[in-house]
Every structure is written in structure tokens, then in C-alpha cells.
């Protein structure tokens, strides 16, 4: 029997000249979950966008159920039953969930908004992926947006669902729920391409795995018969080691002191309901919690980007609650935001982004000293292994992982007293995530106070000297690093006392 999908020797050269795929082949069988594994920039997203008709290959052939196809738009792929859930979601942020679902489905077949509503509610209930249909997408947390996307694919009656790094924004519980959902759908005959760089997930979810390296497939394995080590070796070409938590050298005075902090989100919902804690120089305090427990509001309030309702935030003894971000910067607060588009000016080039908010250090009178700025950028991209075409390319032209490395690198290589790292390894492959973690540990050892907010529970437990668990805007537990286990923290995250 012919495979459901067969992509043969696909090459893709982007208009700017980046060779993303150099003759990669990929095969998907009916009813299987096929993992597509590879480092950042390996070309996974590009390959799948080609299958989805969003990009056209430079050369190569695609067969669907044995028949040669060439999709000129996502619409044509959708008609054949191929759906894609993008890494950075493809939803119109100012529309409601329902409007998005309706728009997508009605472009494939005739349907009324009412029908979409009732079918979505029905499917959502059946599969346990309920999404508030009338909420505007921009007001939903990432996990919820993803569920909306999956719901969209299911409403399209997709036979093939491509999931691009689906767990990168999910909590462990949400990720488990997703994997359970995939199993249920596979039993109903849906085939999946599961794009990821996380080895653990491959063994958990996939039947087979194809490893992509630098635009070429370097092997296809039975997931059950392979090991993480074997896959890692194929993927990177060498074995990798996980960073181990190590006790802090010396804990100094209090750098950050948060007291009774109350803050609301854009919709006016109270997200932080009286949180108090402190972070000392030379220690890492990790914040764990289900997404939407107030993490974003906490980070933004400290960075000066959100005016809290009540409470105080003191950095090195100075009250900064409600003050502009300039004040926080002046006191030495470094900030890695959750969203890349907040930490980078995507339309500006790499050099400009490297000196963002640090222009003073690269000025000659009123003029920018582009020489020293370029030098800084060059140092940054080398140290943090940012893969790029030219330093004068727009940041938007970088892949997600490279944007993340650029943004994190800029903050981690600056001088400061307090680092707020919100999802610092989001979208990064194993190797670069480890590098970032190692850098965070190094900064701590040099005496920086670190507030680590992450939905990757492993990461929080690995790095933190103390763990604070947020639940519905309140701190429901504080554990020392040694005593924090997945089980204990997980139970607190679910709201158990």
C-alpha cells in the first residue's frame, strides 16, 4: 500500500538565499504518529509548511495517497484533509475563537457560524478540549490558543494533522493531556506528524521517528526500538549532558522584595491576588504553576510593564511598583520576556536588536557608534550560537530558536543585579537550552539574583534553589530546591494544599 504522504527529495531555498532543505525525504503512513525530530533550524517547520501548501518547494515531489500533488495554497491542502497547528499560532488575534474557526472551516466547505459553534462545543466536550468560543484570541493563554488550533483541525475533519512543537508552550499536565488526545484521535484513524526537538516526547508519543539534520533526513527509526541517546546522536552528531543543579556559592542580601502584589490582566481579571516573596543575590528562585496563574503579570509588574493594583516591589530597597520600565533598568533589572515580539524589535536588524535598551553604551555624542554596536552583536551571536545570514538582516528573518537565543543572549550578557527570566529556553533545542541554563547558573554564581519563571517543570526543578508555586494568583507553597520533586510541585500546581 502506498504511504499516505511521501515527500521526495525536497529542496527549499528562501528568497534571501538561506538553504533550509537540501533534498529531504519524509514518509507518513496511515494511522501512525510520526515524529519529525531535529535541532533548531534543521528545517522541520519549512518541510511541514511545504506539505501544508504554505510554502512551495524549490524542487522535489510530493505524493498524497500515491498521487502526485502540488499544493499552491493551504486551502488546497486543507481540502485533501491536511491541517497544521503552527508553532507560533496562525489565528487572527483580534477575532474571537469562533470567528477564527468559522473562517477556516468555511474556506473549505459551506457551513454556517451556528453549525460551527455547536459542532465545536460538541467536539470540545467529547475530547476534553473545551475552549471559550466567544473570547478574543489575543486574550487567551498559549495553551488555550493551541487547543483552539487543534479544534480547528478536527473540525476540518483532517486526516493528517501536523503539530509543530506542540508542547513548547504547555505545562506538563497540558502536554500529557495533549498526548492522550493524540492517542485517542489516532485510534479514530487520524495520522500525525509530531514536530519536536524534545527526545523524551518522541518515545512517549511516536510510532516512528525521522531525524532531520541541517536540511537532510539522517535516519528513520522505530520509536520503540531506539533510545534517547541514539536519537540525540543522530540529531546533533554528539551526545549531550543535562545541567545538574548545584548549591549556590554564597547567598547575599535581598535584591528583590515583593509584598502583597495584586495585578489585573488586560481584561481586568485579577491575576495576582497578593503574592509576597523575596530573592537574594546569588540565588535562583523558580516560579512554577499552571499557565495563567499570574506568571505573566508578575514578570511584567517587576519589569515595570504593568501597573499593579496594590502591593510593593522593591529592587535593592527602592520602590518601583507602577514606575516606568526605565526605573527597573536603572536599578539593574534584566528581563527576558515570555514573548519574543516583546523582547525584540522584529523589523529591526540583528545589530540594532543587540543594543536595544543599551544604546547609551554605543553612542558617540548623539550618534550611534555602529562599529562598537556591530562588535557587540558579533560577540553575542558567536557566544549564543545564533545562526544568521547577515548581521544586518531583520530579526524577523531568524528562525524562532535563533530569535530566542539572540534575545536571551542580549540580556544574559549584560551587567545587572536581578534577572527575570520568563520561559528562557522556550523553543530551544536540547543543546542550546542547556547552554542557556548553564549561563543562568553562571550568573547566579557571580552573585546575580535570578527569578526564573518557566512552564518547563524539569527546568524549574533543575535550576532553582527555592521553588514558589503559584495557583490562581496566590503563592500556595514554597519549597527548598532539594525537597522539591515533580510529585510535590505538581500537586501544588493543581491547587492541592
Amino acid at each position, binding site marked *: 500500500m502506498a504511504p499516505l504522504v511521501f515527500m521526495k527529495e525536497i529542496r527549499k531555498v528562501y528568497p534571501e538565499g538561506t538553504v533550509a532543505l537540501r533534498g529531504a525525504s519524509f514518509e507518513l503512513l496511515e494511522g501512525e504518529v510520526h515524529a519529525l525530530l531535529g535541532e533548531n533550524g534543521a528545517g522541520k517547520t519549512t518541510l511541514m509548511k511545504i506539505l501544508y501548501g504554505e510554502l512551495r518547494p524549490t524542487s522535489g515531489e510530493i505524493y498524497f495517497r500515491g498521487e502526485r500533488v502540488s499544493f499552491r495554497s*493551504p486551502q488546497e491542502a486543507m481540502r485533501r484533509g491536511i491541517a497544521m497547528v503552527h508553532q507560533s499560532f496562525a489565528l487572527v488575534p*483580534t*477575532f474571537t475563537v469562533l470567528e477564527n474557526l*468559522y473562517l477556516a472551516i*468555511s*474556506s473549505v466547505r459551506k457551513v454556517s457560524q451556528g453549525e460551527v459553534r455547536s459542532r465545536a462545543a460538541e467536539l470540545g466536550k467529547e475530547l476534553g478540549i473545551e475552549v471559550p468560543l466567544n473570547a478574543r484570541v489575543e486574550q487567551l493563554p498559549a495553551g488555550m490558543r493551541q487547543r483552539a488550533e487543534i479544534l480547528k483541525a478536527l473540525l476540518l475533519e483532517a486526516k493528517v494533522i501536523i503539530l509543530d512543537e506542540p508542547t513548547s508552550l504547555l505545562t506538563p499536565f497540558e502536554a500529557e493531556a495533549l498526548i492522550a488526545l493524540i492517542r485517542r484521535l489516532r485510534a479514530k484513524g487520524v495520522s500525525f506528524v509530531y514536530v519536536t526537538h524534545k527526545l523524551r516526547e518522541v518515545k512517549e508519543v511516536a510510532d516512528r521517528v525521522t531525524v532531520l539534520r541541517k536540511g537532510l533526513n539522517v535516519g528513520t527509526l522505530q520509536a520503540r526500538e531506539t533510545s534517547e541517546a541514539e536519537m540525540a546522536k543522530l540529531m546533533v552528531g554528539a551526545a549531550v549532558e543535562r545541567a545538574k543543579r548545584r548549591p549556590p556559592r554564597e547567598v547575599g542580601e535581598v535584591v528583590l522584595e515583593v509584598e502583597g502584589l495584586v495585578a489585573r490582566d488586560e481584561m481586568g481579571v485579577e491575576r495576582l491576588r497578593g503574592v509576597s516573596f523575596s530573592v537574594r543575590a546569588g540565588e535562583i528562585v523558580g516560579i512554577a504553576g499552571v499557565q495563567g496563574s499570574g506568571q505573566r503579570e508578575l514578570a511584567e509588574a517587576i519589569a515595570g510593564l504593568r501597573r499593579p493594583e496594590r502591593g510593593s516591589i522593591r529592587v535593592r530597597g527602592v520602590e518601583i511598583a507602577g514606575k516606568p520600565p526605565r526605573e527597573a533598568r536603572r536599578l539593574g533589572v534584566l528581563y527576558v520576556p515570555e514573548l519574543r515580539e516583546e523582547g525584540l524589535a522584529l523589523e529591526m536588524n540583528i545589530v540594532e536588536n543587540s543594543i536595544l535598551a543599551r544604546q547609551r553604551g554605543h553612542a558617540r555624542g548623539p550618534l550611534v557608534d555602529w562599529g562598537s554596536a556591530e562588535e557587540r552583536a558579533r560577540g553575542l551571536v558567536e557566544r549564543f550560537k545564533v545562526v544568521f545570514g547577515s548581521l544586518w538582516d531583520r530579526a524577523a528573518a531568524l528562525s524562532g530558536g535563533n530569535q530566542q537565543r539572540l534575545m536571551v543572549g542580549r540580556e544574559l550578557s549584560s551587567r545587572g543585579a536581578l534577572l527575570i527570566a520568563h520561559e528562557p529556553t522556550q523553543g530551544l533545542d536540547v543543546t542550546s537550552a542547556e547552554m542557556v541554563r548553564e549561563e543562568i547558573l553562571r550568573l547566579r554564581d557571580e552573585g546575580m539574583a535570578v527569578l526564573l519563571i518557566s512552564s518547563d517543570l524539569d527546568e524549574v526543578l533543575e535550576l532553582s534553589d527555592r521553588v514558589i508555586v503559584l495557583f490562581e494568583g496566590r503563592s500556595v507553597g514554597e519549597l527548598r530546591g532539594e525537597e522539591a520533586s515533580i510529585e510535590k510541585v505538581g500537586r501544588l500546581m493543581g491547587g492541592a494544599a
Partner: protein
Amino acid sequence: MVEAELWAFIAVSSVAYMTPILLVTIGEIIAERSGVVNIGVEGILLASAFAAVAAAFFSGSAALGVASGALAGALIGALFGLFAVYLRADQIIAGLAINLSSYGFTVLGLIALWGHHGASPRVEAELPYFSLGQGSVPLLSLLALLIAAVAWLLLFRTRAGLALRACGEEPSAAYAMGVNVRLYRMAAVVLGGALAGLGGSFLALELAGSFTRGMSAGMGFIALANVAFSGWNPLPAILGAYVFGFLSAAADALQQEVGYAYLLKTLPYLGTLAAAALLGRRSIRPPQRLGVPF
């Protein structure tokens, strides 16, 4: 002096004066909702006024004049769309090009057709209207109000409107969901051009009765301000256009009474801009990807 009767007359004739602005505004709202800003509407207004007068003059038919004006608007809209949508040119520069060349071509046209560079002869072809109280309302003005309502329905109550707005909010997401973004944007600027062309026809055939050089006189730009004032919604746009229409009608009526003709003629412009600036709802956001080529 100024009496209640006069004000009633002004209030009714405002409806005629507001018509070109309203039509241009609705067309521009549709274009901008799809993500394309066309400042060339000023030029379209002028060029379509010329086309309408020329057609009506030589055929003797007002209906043919109106149709030619709308068609000219649609064609210029299509030309703009070719550059701004398909060739991804800068939208402001493409619009500017239309404004400048429309002025030049209409002056050339005046000389070529009538051997005069200031104004065309009067056109006797009359548009249908019916009387209302102290004044009369052209049929086309009522049609403009109807078009506003239909445009609102189209934008906010139909699947096509949803897709069109998605193109202006997040074109890449719209594309991934199967919307032909460029086609929608093209259709929006062509429709926008046709409506502006209808406005130009009305301006020349109904309000002026002839073509004079530069007769659009910044009305297209006032319409652009009205787009923002309306919050990109055709219904509030009626209010903005009415303010302009009312002040124009008042200026016209009063200049016979009080003089200061030139000063009075600035009143509609200043008044409308002031209203747009003061009353515009700040909570309304423009389409997120307005002006960005896809």
C-alpha cells in the same frame, strides 16, 4: 436674517453635500479593513468627476455619466491595487502617484476636450431627486446611505466580511486558514475605487454641474480623517460625513447673507477635522496590519 426656515433648508441640503465624502469614506473603510490604505482617493474623486462630466457632456445622459465615473474609479483602484497589492509597492507612495497624476491628466483632458484649462462647460443632464420639506434630496444621496448600511452588513455580518477583515488584522493567519489575501485586498481597493468614483460623479454632476480643475479640493483627505473618526465602521461614518455636509451647506447658504466667502469655505474642513480629532473614539484600534504589504 437667519431664520428657522433657512436652517431647515440647510439641514436638508446637507444630505446632498455629504454624499461624496460619505461614498469615499465607505470605500476607504472597505479598503483599509482589508489592510490597504489608499490615500489616492483624492485623485480618484477628481479623475472620476472628470470622467463623469465628459461622458455626460457627450452623451447627454446623466446615468451614463455616473456609470463612467464609477467605472473610472474602479479602474484607477485596480491600477493602484496592481502596484500596492500584487507588486507590494509602498501604499502611500502609490496613492500619492495617483493624486498627482490625476490632477495632471484632468487638466490635460480639459484642454483636449474643450480647449480650456480652467473648467468644462455646464452639463445639462440632471440626476433624479425628490423633494423633502424645504429642500430636495438627490436619489443618489439616499443610495449612499443605503450603501453605508449594506457595507456594514457586508463587513460585520458575512463570511466574506470576516475574511476581508482577517486580511487587515493578520494576513498570514488568514492565508493559513485558506483566505486568498491578495485577491481580497484587490477586490477591496477596486470596490473602494468604484465608490469613490461614484462620489466624484455626484460631486461634478449634482453639486457643481461642471468640472473645474482641482475640484475635489481635499475632500478625499477629509474622508480619510472620517475613516479614523468612524472607527473603521460605515455607520458612524455617516455622522462624520454629515458634519462636513452640514457645514458646507451652511457656508454656501450663509455666504450670500454675510459675505466672507473664502473664510466660510474653510469652515467645513476645519469643523470636520476638529470633530474627528475631538470626538474620535480612542479605544478603537485601526486594523493591525494596515499599510503592510502581504
